[in-house]
C-alpha cells in the first residue's frame, strides 16, 4: 500500500484494495465512513506487551490490535482489527484486554454494535496463559454484550485466518462474513499434521487446507452467514447487511443452534472431504466450487443454503 492510498479513503479505493493484503489500519480506514475513526489507546500510548522482552522479541506499539470507534453509514460503531502480520495476529495479555474493554463498553451502552476484523493464529505462545485467558474473557464479554442486545459482527479474510481461540470467538459472534482467503478453524493445518501425521492432514496441500477450512466451505456449511469478495468494499457492504439483518440473542438462539449443529453432524458426519459435503448439499459440480469466481459462488451459495439468521 502506498501512503497516498492509506490516507485518502474513497469508494474507489475500498473497491480496489484487497482485504487480504491490506494492513489492519488500512482495513479500518477504508471500511468505516471516511475520517470517522477514533482510536482508543493508540500507538502513541505505547501500550506494548510486557512479556515479549523476556523472549528478546520486538514489540509493536499497538500490540497488534487496533480498537476504537467510528461510523458506519452514519451510525456509530465500535471496531477492532487484528494485524495478522505481527506475531501472526495472536492474542496476548494487552492485545486481548483491549478487545475485552471495548466489548464491556458496548454491553453497557447496549446500542452500539461491534465489528471485529479477525486475523489471528490464536494464542500468542510467549504469553500463552495470559492469551488463553484473554480469549476466555473476550468470549464471555461477547456473550454478555449480545445478551444486552449488542450485535457483534466478525469479518474474516486476513493473512493469518482465524484459528485457535480466534475461531471460538468468531463462533460467539452474532454473524460472520468471510472471503475465500479467510480460514476459520480451531487446529491449524500444521498442528494437525504434527499431532496426527501427514496421512490425517497434509498441511502443504493447500487446496485441501482451503476446502476444509476456507471461506467457501464455511459459507456452504453455515459456518459463516455471508461470503465477501476480497475487497474492503465488499466487506463493508457485507458488514452493513449483517448489521441490518442479524437477530438478537437468547435461549431460542442457542436451541436453534443446537439443532443446526446436530443436523449438520447427522447429515455430513460421515463425509470424508468437503467435496462430499457440497455434493450432499446438491451442488451440481462440487469439485468446481474452489475455482468459482466470487459472484458465481455467492449465487450458488444463496441457492444451496439459506442461512438461518437466528441460530448463532
Amino acid at each position: 500500500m502506498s501512503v497516498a492510498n492509506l490516507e485518502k479513503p474513497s469508494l474507489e479505493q475500498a473497491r480496489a484494495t484487497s482485504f487480504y493484503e491490506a494492513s489492519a489500519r488500512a482495513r479500518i480506514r477504508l471500511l468505516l465512513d471516511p475520517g470517522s475513526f477514533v482510536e482508543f489507546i493508540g500507538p502513541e500510548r505505547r501500550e506494548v506487551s510486557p512479556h515479549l522482552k523476556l523472549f528478546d522479541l520486538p514489540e509493536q506499539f499497538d500490540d497488534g490490535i487496533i480498537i476504537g470507534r467510528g461510523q458506519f453509514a452514519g451510525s456509530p460503531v465500535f471496531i477492532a482489527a487484528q494485524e495478522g502480520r505481527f506475531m501472526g495476529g495472536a492474542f496476548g495479555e494487552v492485545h486481548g484486554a483491549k478487545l475485552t474493554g471495548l466489548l464491556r463498553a458496548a454491553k453497557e451502552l447496549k446500542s452500539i454494535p461491534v465489528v471485529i476484523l479477525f486475523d489471528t493464529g490464536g494464542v500468542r505462545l510467549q504469553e500463552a496463559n495470559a492469551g488463553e485467558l484473554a480469549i476466555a474473557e473476550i468470549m464471555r464479554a461477547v456473550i454478555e454484550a449480545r445478551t444486552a442486545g449488542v450485535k457483534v459482527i466478525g469479518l474474516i479474510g486476513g493473512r493469518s485466518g482465524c484459528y485457535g481461540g480466534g475461531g471460538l470467538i468468531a463462533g460467539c459472534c452474532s454473524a460472520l462474513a468471510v472471503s475465500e482467503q479467510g480460514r476459520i478453524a480451531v487446529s491449524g493445518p500444521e498442528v494437525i499434521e504434527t499431532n496426527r501425521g501427514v496421512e490425517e492432514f497434509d498441511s502443504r496441500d493447500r487446496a485441501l487446507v482451503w476446502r476444509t477450512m476456507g471461506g467457501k466451505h464455511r459459507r456452504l456449511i453455515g459456518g459463516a452467514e455471508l461470503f465477501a469478495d476480497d475487497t474492503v468494499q465488499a466487506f463493508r457492504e457485507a458488514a452493513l447487511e449483517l448489521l441490518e439483518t442479524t437477530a438478537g440473542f437468547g435461549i431460542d438462539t442457542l436451541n436453534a443452534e443446537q439443532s443446526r449443529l446436530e443436523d449438520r453432524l447427522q447429515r455430513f458426519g460421515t463425509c470424508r472431504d468437503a467435496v462430499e459435503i457440497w455434493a450432499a448439499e446438491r451442488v451440481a459440480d462440487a469439485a468446481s466450487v474452489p475455482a468459482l469466481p466470487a459472484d458465481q459462488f455467492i449465487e450458488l451459495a444463496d441457492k444451496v443454503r439459506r442461512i438461518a439468521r437466528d441460530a448463532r
Partner: protein
Amino acid sequence: MKNWQQGRQARDARIEAGAKLAKGKIVAASDATRLMEAVIGPGDRVCLEGDNQKQADLLCRALLGVDLAKVNGLHMVQSGIVLPEHLDLFDRGVAKRLDYAYSGPQAARIARMLFGGKIELGAVHTYLELFARYFVDLTPQVALIAAVSADHDGNLYTGPNTEDTPTVVEATAFKNGVVIAQVNEIVDKVPRVDIPADRVQFVVEADKPFFVEPLFTRDPGAITEGQILTAMLAIKAIYAPYGVRRLNHGIGFSTAAIELLLPTYGERLGLKGKVASHFALNPHPALIPAIESGWVEQIHCFGSEVGMDEYIRARSDVFFTGPDGSLRSNRAFCQTAGLYACDMFIGSTLQIDLQGNSSTVTTSRIAGFGGAPNMGADARGRRHPSTPWLQAGREADPDGSALLRRGRKLVVQIGETFGEKNVPLFVEKLDALALAEKLKLDLAPVMIYGDDVTHIVTEEGVANLLLCRDENEREQAIRGVAGYTHVGRSRDRKMVQHLRERGVIRRPEDLGIDPLDADRSMLAARSIKDLVRWSGGLYAPPSQFRNW
C-alpha cells in the same frame, strides 16, 4: 584386420542381454533393476535424464538398486543432480565420476560429497556445454530417459516437458548407445511422435508419473514493494531506451514483477509493441497477463511448467505446439535461441563483486550453472544486427568504426542490495573463490562474468557499465548502486556523483520514479488466483500455490 564395428557389437550385446527381460521392448517396472544389471557394465558412461524440471525417477531408483558386483564405478553425464537418489548413487558406489550442469536442490550435499572425495568431478557445465560434449567426448553408452507415453513399438511422446530428451537420445542412439525410457503409460497410439521407436530399445511403464518440479512459478502475492521498484527502474531505464523486444528472463521475483508490470506500468509508458514481444523462456505463469494483454508475440520454451499445459494449448499463436496441440519444448534449441537470438538477459543472483562477476555459490553450496551463463553472455559468434545490440555496442565503444564494431548483448543483473536475512548482494570477494580454493578447482564457479554484464539494477538505481571507461569507473558505478552494503558505503562519493551526472548511474529520481509510488496495486495480478482469472481458468496451478 581391424574391427571397425566394436561399438555396434557391444551395443547389440547389451540389447540382447536386456531383451531376455523384455516383451518386445517392454520391461516390467519390477524388472527395471535387472534390466540395468543386464544392459550396463562397470565404468560405463550413463546419462540419467534429469534436469531442473522432469526426472527419470523410476529408472534412477532402479539403478540405485543394482548388484554392485555387476554395475559399479559409472561415469554419470547428466544435466541435473536434483533428486537425493542422484547422489545416493555415488554414496553407494554405483557411480564414481560426474559431469553435470545444475544441482539446485542438492547444492549443500553435493558440496560435502565433492569435498569428501565421494565424487570424482569432471566439470560443472552450462546446459549447452554439456549437450555439446555429449557429441564430442562425453557420449553416453546408456541413456535412461523419461517420457509421458510410449506405443508398443517404442515411439515416445515426451509431452510438454520434452526438455533434454531429443538431445540425449540423438547423442546416444546414433553412437552405439542404448536408450531406456520410463513412461507414465503405454498406449496404442501416442499423441505425437517426439522420439521415433528405432532410437528406443527398452520401455518401462512406471507406476506413477515422473516427477516434475514447478520451478518457474512465482506467487505474485510474495512480490515486495522493493522488487516492484527495481522492476520499474529496469523497464524505464533499459527496456524502454534500448527497445528490447527479444529477451530472456530469470526466475526471480524481480523479473516476475517486470512481467506483471508490463500490462500496467509498461502500458502507461506506451511501450506495448515496442518491448518484450519475443521470449526464449519457460512458460512463466506470471507472464499470462502480458500475453493476454497482447504484449507477447512468441515464446520458445526450454521446458514446460506445471499447470500451464491447457493454457499453452489454447494459445498456440504464442507458444510452439505439436500437431496434437500440446507444447513442444526443447532445452538445447531454446538455450541456443537465448544465446544467439535474444538481445537481453535479465536475472537475479546471490553475489556480485566489484568487477561485476556474479555467482550463486556460497561457501557450502554448489548449485551449478544450468542455463544462465548462456543467456547471460555475449555471443561472440553473433553476426545479425538489431537496434538494442547495436546501441549497446555503440555505448561500449563510441569511438570505434561503426561497420567493424561488435554489438553487445544486454546482460542485466537485477536485485535488491540486501537479500534474505540481510545478506548483502554486493561483496568484495565472491564466496565462489573460497570454494574453488577449498576444492582445488581450476576455475571458480562464476555464473556470469563481469565483462559480460552491462547493467546492474537495484532499488538504489541503475548502473550502466557500458558507459564506464576504466576499471575504477566500473567499480565505483557498482558501489554507487550497492546502497548500504559495506561495498556501497565504501564508495567514493565524489566519483559516484560524477558518474551520476554522466548518466552512468541513474537514481530513481533521475528517471522520474518516486520510490513511494512502488505499490503492489500496480501489479497486473496480485495472487495466483488472479493469474488463473487472467487465463480464463486455463491455468491450473499446483496445490502448493493455491489459497482457495
